[in-house]
């Protein structure tokens, strides 16, 4: 649905996106993570045929970016970093303009559908300038969906929203992801990416890693359990290390961190070895790594 090959974008010699090769499948929710200036927005602008790539190739919904730009634009919806609405026009007028520009057949019913879906129908004739940030963001999402695009780009969809508004927007994105659309989200919100995205790409000009959130964690840290003991002694550490399936053992804050391939199957043997070596096991828990930790470790190593 979205494919890039060695996509590169420079602005007057400044490298914004470097050699990006990526494939996003139909119906997938893809998260694009990276610090400010990493090239996320530039990538979206290139893929939405707003700016031309300097080198490389890209296809969106089967159309070649740079050669079939009109078709690319007609088949994508985009939520830009700022909602970019016309404050003096009311909600309905804002949407009607874009429905006409996208060539929507039944402008009235399509506008009503999305205003209703996003809970804005009752306030359709109010100037958008008086709307809260959350309402403006919802309206901007509605605008991106009016022409029922198979590909949706969302650039920081919940940035600057209060938790309640952010939740409404997130829930709506979850709802959309169930409709078979390909959704490409640029975000700084790692929890959001973790919750919403099937796969995540981490970018800092170059693409650092792409995988499902869980696979990213496993790839970096493997799977480990934390075992809290009354007292950690060298004997106990040696007893665990002696087990053939244990990949590593480390002492962390009065606990043993044991890396395993299959914790559910191997934990009983680890506990048994500790008890037989005289250890008093208090708790055993699976160690969780947040996506934030994954992100910072990837960024640190890039």
């Amino acid at each position, binding site marked *: 649905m979205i494919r890039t090959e060695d996509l590169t974008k420079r*602005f007057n010699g400044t490298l914004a996106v470097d050699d990006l090769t990526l494939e996003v499948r139909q119906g997938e929710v893809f998260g694009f993570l990276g610090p400010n200036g990493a090239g996320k927005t530039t990538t979206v*602008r290139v893929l*939405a*045929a*707003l*700016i*031309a790539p300097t080198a490389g190739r890209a296809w969106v919904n089967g159309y070649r970016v740079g050669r079939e730009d*009109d078709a690319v*634009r*007609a088949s*994508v919806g*985009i939520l*830009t*970093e*700022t*909602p*970019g*609405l*016309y*404050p*003096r*026009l009311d909600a309905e*007028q804002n949407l009607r*303009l*874009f429905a*006409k*520009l*996208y*060539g929507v057949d039944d402008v009235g019913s399509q506008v009503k559908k999305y205003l209703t879906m996003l809970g804005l129908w009752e306030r359709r004739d109010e*100037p958008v300038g008086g709307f809260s940030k959350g309402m403006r963001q919802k309206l*901007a999402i509605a*605008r*991106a969906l009016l022409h029922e695009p198979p590909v949706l780009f969302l650039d920081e969809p919940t940035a600057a929203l209060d938790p309640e508004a952010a939740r409404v927007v997130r829930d709506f994105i979850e709802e959309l992801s169930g409709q078979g659309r390909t959704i490409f989200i640029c975000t700084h919100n790692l929890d959001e990416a973790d919750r919403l995205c099937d796969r995540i790409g981490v970018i800092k000009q170059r693409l650092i890693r792409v995988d499902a959130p869980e696979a990213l964690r496993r790839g970096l840290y493997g799977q480990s359990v934390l075992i809290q003991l009354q007292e950690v002694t060298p004997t106990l550490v040696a007893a665990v290390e002696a087990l053939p399936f244990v990949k590593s053992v480390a002492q962390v804050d009065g606990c043993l961190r044991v890396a395993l391939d299959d914790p559910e199957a191997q934990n009983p043997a680890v506990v048994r070895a500790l008890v037989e070596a005289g250890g008093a096991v208090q708790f055993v828990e699976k160690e969780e790594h947040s996506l934030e930790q994954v992100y910072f470790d990837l960024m640190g190593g890039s």
Partner: protein
Amino acid sequence: MNGGRIWAIVEKEWLDMRKNKMVVIMMALLPVLMVGLILGSTFFMQRAPEEELNLNTGSQPFSLPPELAALGAKDGFIALMNDQYMFYLLLIPMALPVYVAAYSIIGEKETRSLEPLLATPISTAELLVGKTIAAVTPAVILAWFSFALVAAGMAFIASPAVFAQLVRPVWTLGMLLLSPLFALLSTSCGVIASSRLNDPRAAQQVTAIFVVPVIGASIAVLAGKIFLNVQVLLWTTAVVALVNLGVLWVAVRLFQRETILTRWK
């Protein structure tokens, strides 16, 4: 070119314009003042004693152009003044669209609405044509309407000779041909200035450059250096049309999607 998309932009601009009180007031103010000034001054001049308007006296006598001398000192002078005023009426289509053009493009910068707009299948040409039609049309209509009001008023307050001078083909044609060209010129300048500037006021000031030749021409007429006839008018129209083409070419070249999206902050 897709007419539906162009019309959607025109509709949006007019809707936005109607809701922007500042633009509406600025657009209404100039024609009202101009029409009031022309009709008011003609009314009082027409009722003044003949000797007060006879400037062909004193140490530096002022002589009317031969074409107006036949009207007599008073009517000739009023007709000469009306020729001046007609130049000012031509400033209406020049001054008004720049308010709309500057706001309609710089306004997009301020609301950050240009990126979603350019993300639609609209082409740069369609967008600029839509914005230009939206800016030019009301200015031209207001200019024509002002001329029609002045002409209608003159029929009642001016002498038949003065009225005939005002509605002679040179001004009727001038209003018909030059108003759209001046409005287009002004709008293209607004587009150029807005593509490079962030302040609508600065964009408006750039257009002031084009007011200078019009004022210059009016002074030349007052000084008797030029008497406008249809031939002079048609040459002027051709020159303004050529200038328009040049300015329009620059405007389209400067209005680049990528530059605007990445450099407008």
